[in-house]
């Protein structure tokens, strides 16, 4: 069981890494922000799988942290965007 879980973790890691490579190659800033989200979900999934494979529940904490960080960086990016002059007629933004 541990071996299969590790294998699948590796698979998810590779899929996320490939996605990261695609997104980071783009020139659009928003697509780079999508990399943060991808890192959050893909990284969390990999860590959870590895945590279950190695019976180390502490990895779940790391996964939680990754998800949290990606959420915060998206919020921070949006706030920074709001301060730019082009966003003068900013629609109200959901929290």
């Amino acid at each position, binding site marked *: 069981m541990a071996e299969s879980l590790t294998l699948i973790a590796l698979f*998810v890691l590779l899929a996320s890494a490939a996605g990261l490579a*695609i997104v980071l190659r783009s020139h659009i800033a928003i697509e780079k922000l999508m990399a943060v989200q991808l890192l959050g979900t893909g990284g969390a*999934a990999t860590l959870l799988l590895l945590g279950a494979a190695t019976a180390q529940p502490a990895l779940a904490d790391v996964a939680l942290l990754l998800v949290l960080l990606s959420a915060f960086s998206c919020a921070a990016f949006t706030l920074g965007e709001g301060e730019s002059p082009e966003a003068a007629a900013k629609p109200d933004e959901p929290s």
Partner: protein
Amino acid sequence: MGLADAFTLICVVAGAVLFLAGTLGLLRFPDTLSRLHALSKADNLGLGLIVLGLMPQQASLMGGAKLVCIWLLAQLSAATASQLIAGIAARRKPQA
């Protein structure tokens, strides 16, 4: 292999396939916002399936609840963040 392990494997493999689908979507979908669809929907369902599959492997009820919390947080943040990102994308080029 017990029933619980079989359940775990099925769910976890399905989750991994969804992650692959998310990456393929990033590669193949034509515009930025469509790629955002792929990212926010496929990957989060993948994470959900993996969490669901790991449930029987948890030693304690608390561990399982924690996994669900992680997934809920990821789902909530993805729902909000994807839409924030989309808003930025639309503001930058209004006819996206």
